[in-house]
């Protein structure tokens, strides 16, 4: 059950090999996966003419790094998830990148991505356990709830003496929800140090930039003041930075404090005309736009 599923190495190796040729080679592998996932994202959203490409594209490196490199996962899927690292997606609207990653890493056939948002699909608009899709442990979509759930899962791990980690991703706009700050207050008080929270710090939400809509101000200072160990990944769309940053985050776990990673990402990253705007938060490309998007992202693992 503890056979890990990863491309090249365990955590220690990574640090031994940092900056080595092998490392660059491996990073390249991850990047290769990322372009395929970007293709999947735009194709999924295009097919049903709905869904959220912007945040999905911006988090592609993160998902690839987590699932193909950083997380210690068991083979197969069981709901309990003991003795493996867990991931929760709180900002459920970026389901395309989640589904594509889960498929590409082996939880279910990539062909199933074609059913995204269609009736009777296991790939609902927002992730759900209701249809039994492997890889999903909680429904999300209504924002603000995932950090609490992740804390609960982390505390369950503790009770079971399971030393693995719990990861959770939130949107930056999502941080405007008060429940996040309830959870943010709770975790340090309870020294939840098997938890790594990640903020998709793309500066955008539906109605515009977070700066305009409701500024998060000094976000580093906020998490810090709430008692978290805060870490920034300055280029969240550079695979090396993301892997490095996540490694750093995991190395800071188990120090009596929860860790939060501010992942500076770019909404729409990897598709030129989707970048630099919030407009692609939840809009689908037309045929022409799809073609343009695909032209910028090589087919590497084979389209579904």
């Amino acid at each position, binding site marked *: 059950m503890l056979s890990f599923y990863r491309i090249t190495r365990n955590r220690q190796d990574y640090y031994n090999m940092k900056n080595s040729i092998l490392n660059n080679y491996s990073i390249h592998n991850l990047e290769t996966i990322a372009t395929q996932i970007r293709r999947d994202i735009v194709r999924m959203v295009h097919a049903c003419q709905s869904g959220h490409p912007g945040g999905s594209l911006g988090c592609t490196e993160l998902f690839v790094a987590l699932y193909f490199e950083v997380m210690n996962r068991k083979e197969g899927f069981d709901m309990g998830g003991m003795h493996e690292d867990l991931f929760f997606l709180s900002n*459920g609207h970026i389901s395309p990148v989640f589904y594509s990653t889960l498929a590409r890493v082996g939880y279910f056939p990539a062909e199933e991505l074609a059913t995204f948002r269609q009736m*009777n699909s296991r790939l*609902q608009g927002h992730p*759900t356990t209701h249809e039994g899709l492997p890889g999903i442990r909680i429904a999300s*979509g209504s924002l603000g709830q995932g950090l609490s759930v992740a804390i609960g899962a982390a505390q369950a791990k503790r009770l079971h003496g399971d030393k693995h980690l719990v990861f959770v991703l939130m949107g930056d706009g999502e941080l*405007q929800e008060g429940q996040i700050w309830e959870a943010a207050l709770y975790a340090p008080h309870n020294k939840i140090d098997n938890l790594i929270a990640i903020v998709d710090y793309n500066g955008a939400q539906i*109605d515009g930039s977070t700066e305009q809509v*409701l500024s998060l101000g000094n976000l580093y200072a906020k998490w810090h003041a709430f008692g978290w160990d805060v870490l920034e990944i300055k280029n969240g769309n550079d695979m090396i930075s993301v892997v490095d940053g996540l490694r750093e985050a995991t190395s800071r776990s188990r120090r009596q404090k929860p860790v939060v990673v501010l992942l500076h990402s770019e909404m729409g990253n990897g598709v030129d005309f989707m970048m630099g705007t919030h407009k692609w938060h939840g809009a689908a490309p037309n045929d022409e736009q799809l073609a343009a998007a695909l032209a910028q992202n090589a087919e590497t693992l084979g389209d579904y």
Partner: protein
Amino acid sequence: MKKYTYTVSKDTRSGFGAGLLEAGRQDENVVALCADLIGSLKMNDFIDAFPDRFFQIGIAEANMMGIAAGLTIGGKIPFTGTFANFSTGRVYDQIRQSIAYSDKNVKIAASHAGLTLGEDGATHQILEDIGLMKMLPGMTVINPCDYNQTKAATIAVAKHRGPVYLRFGRPVVPIFTAEDQVFEIGKAVMLNEGKDVTIIATGHLVWEAIQAGERLEALGIDAEIINIHTIKPLDDEAILRSVQKTRCVVTAEEHNRIGGLGDSVAQLLSKTLPAPQEYVAVDDSFGESGTPAQLMDKYGLNASAIVDAVQKVITRKM
């Protein structure tokens, strides 16, 4: 069967957007709040016309309800805007204490109600919002049926004193009510007089009820059809008058069968005039992703379902 026709279809939320603009023109105390869903709520025209009377709240629905309550203290008439789910279940306690119990003049405008927002799936499809809001003492609950009626309802609601829950949707649906209608809160609209069965429908199901009425006519069944745009206060009189005549009833709503319009009617009848009733509603399940039309079909929220229910209830007449 009276004929209803239409040339244009539109989403009811656009009726809200148009009504809000008009209400804003009529009364400078009308203000609007939105929790990062301006486009979905069709608030753009209002914002363009009255930028100083709009409050962007961000993704913080609880805070929005509290701020709206506070604004009324200064005499403002705030319309809050977000999806129906986040307008009700997300903020039930805030509405309860700061608005309903405090008797504040807040208008809760809720888009994407029911199944028909479609592809986003169950987390965004609330089927319990009518039930949630109708349990609050003093709350008025309104679910208009098309663009024109939603616009008229919005304007009426702005003039009404007291908390209101105004529910509307995303899909385009036929516009068959009059552009210049007067919207009377709490007053049922008689769409067709008939003698064999009473069909009481609300929201998107009203058009389906009309379709059903035509098919029933072909089957020799003469249906009385009531558009009950206001679920609370319920127009008891109109319903009783009709059921006294027809002795059986079908209710139709885009809502869980538990807690919605159907239960309001059942309570009324059980206390005064017990009669066979069939529910056209979602059978106590969550929704799912799909196109609006697919979902209405799968979850039995259409004219055929109403026809079936009528045929069943008629055989149950006492």
